[in-house]
């Protein structure tokens, strides 16, 4: 029996969403782990792009920041940041954006700016960075985030980055013609947008997780697909590669001063 943590299940599921021919704009943190796991397992030719301008990067350890030297040294090429955002992202060259969030609603709208009121915040978060344009300029968007009532809310405090807006075809009303969030991978399940309403519905549940757990950890009314799959457990290979990646990363980031 293979043993794994819910976070490992999430990262492995997120990695599986990527294809070998994807060109992926990688957010830092959980997306970065998933994207590099994909590259080190089933998608060796995937092009990973970080907003620091590194194109086709193949880091041996996960970067702590989006601009660690490792990213540049292992990249096909490195371009200036204005070029990255203008030609490659805005120019429509990127198939998938992989993002995390602090708060998320059922339409995949993302808040990474503030908790509370913008001018008088309870918690000031880092802000949007590349996400507002990654969310609209990439062909589609995958989201990865640990599920909790605090994070998965009916109404987010600030719309940092557009998902499906108010649902239905609202996204298109902003002049956006890309697909938007097409998959949400959590530590409990996988959700995909309803084909018409665009609200997330649960399409696959991770082994050992109950529907009640998903409901308890979601701030909106959870909808389940007519046929809900059970997510395949992580393979020994996937776990081994992921754990080795994390071990190399921890070693690389310790001990400098």
């Amino acid at each position, binding site marked *: 029996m293979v043993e794994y943590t819910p976070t490992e299940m999430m990262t492995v599921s997120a990695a599986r969403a990527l294809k070998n021919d994807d060109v992926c704009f990688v957010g830092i943190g959980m997306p970065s782990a998933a994207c590099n796991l994909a590259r080190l397992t089933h998608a060796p030719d995937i092009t990973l792009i970080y907003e620091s301008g590194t194109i086709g990067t193949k880091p041996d350890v996960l970067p702590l920041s989006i*601009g660690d030297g490792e990213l540049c040294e292992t990249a096909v090429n490195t371009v200036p940041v204005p070029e990255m955002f203008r030609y490659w992202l805005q120019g429509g060259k990127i198939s998938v954006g992989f993002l995390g969030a602090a708060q998320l609603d059922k339409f995949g709208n993302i808040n990474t700016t503030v908790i509370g009121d913008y001018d008088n915040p309870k918690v000031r*978060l880092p802000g949007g960075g590349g996400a507002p344009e990654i969310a609209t300029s990439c062909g589609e968007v995958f989201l990865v985030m640990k599920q909790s009532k605090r994070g998965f809310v009916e109404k987010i405090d600030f719309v940092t980055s557009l998902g499906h807006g108010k649902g239905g075809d609202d996204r298109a009303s902003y002049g956006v013609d890309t697909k938007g969030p097409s998959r949400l991978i959590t530590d409990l399940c996988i959700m995909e947008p309803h084909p018409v309403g665009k609200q997330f519905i649960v399409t696959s549940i991770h082994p050992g997780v109950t529907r009640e757990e998903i409901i308890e950890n979601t701030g909106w009314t959870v909808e389940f697909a007519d046929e809900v799959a059970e997510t395949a457990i992580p393979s020994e290979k996937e776990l081994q590669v992921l754990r080795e990646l994390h071990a190399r990363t921890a070693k690389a980031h310790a001990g400098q001063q």
Partner: protein
Amino acid sequence: MVARFMSLKEAVASCVKDGDTISMEGFTHLIPHAAGHEIIRQGIKDLTLIRMTPDMIYDQLIGAGCAKKLIFSWGGNPGVGSLHRLREAVQENWPHKLEIEEHSHAAMANAYDAGAAGLPCAVFKGYRGAELPRVNPNIKFIKCPFTGESLAAVPSIRPDVTVVHAQKANKKGDVLFEGIVGVQKEAVLAAKKSIVTVEEIVDDFGDISSNAVMLPNWAVTAIVEIPGGAHPSYAQGYYKRDNAFYKAWDPIARDREAFQAWIEEHVMNGGPEDFAAKREANKG
């Protein structure tokens, strides 16, 4: 006017004054930390600080009371968490109120590009469906005169002074950047004055690509040689990013007194010569 070689003290004293709008760039790589410390040491106040990622360098300037306003697009400690001095300035007005103007990376990258290009504003496909335009009056939408498409517009960035760090200058004062080059070239060309700190001054650059990112000496105001001057950021080819120190910064910045003690010890009682040892310690 060609670039002049100066000490860091002289460069900051002659280029940066109270109330200036200043950009200290370097996208994770080549962040001019030694120059940031010098601004704190000289007690320069009321600065409008511009940087895509305020990072530790602006956390220090904000906590030390140098800043009146911050223009930025992502204000965290990458991979670690919050910038606690920035966060406390916004949430608690400590050490005093900090005005913020917040953008996305795409907006700021375009705004630097427009500044370097001598344009009053940048136009791009951005902020669609996003809420920042509601809280930032410097984000507007205009109609393309040819297609009618709605496009975002932001003012170009044209700082009084830009400060950046690079790997090398030659004896004539031309500057070479390598690796992640960020928005440094745009930020220098957009500014009225510029200070470039470098790892070393060399006789010539040797065998470099004819497409290497360079600033000729007549495009730069002051050059200062500071080995290790980007630490705890990094200079590709010289030393690695000190990720352990970025993690260690979190508890220091979290606590006002710990922060003030750190500034006293390492900035007020320190100098640019302290950075060389950091370079040695972080060689890969």
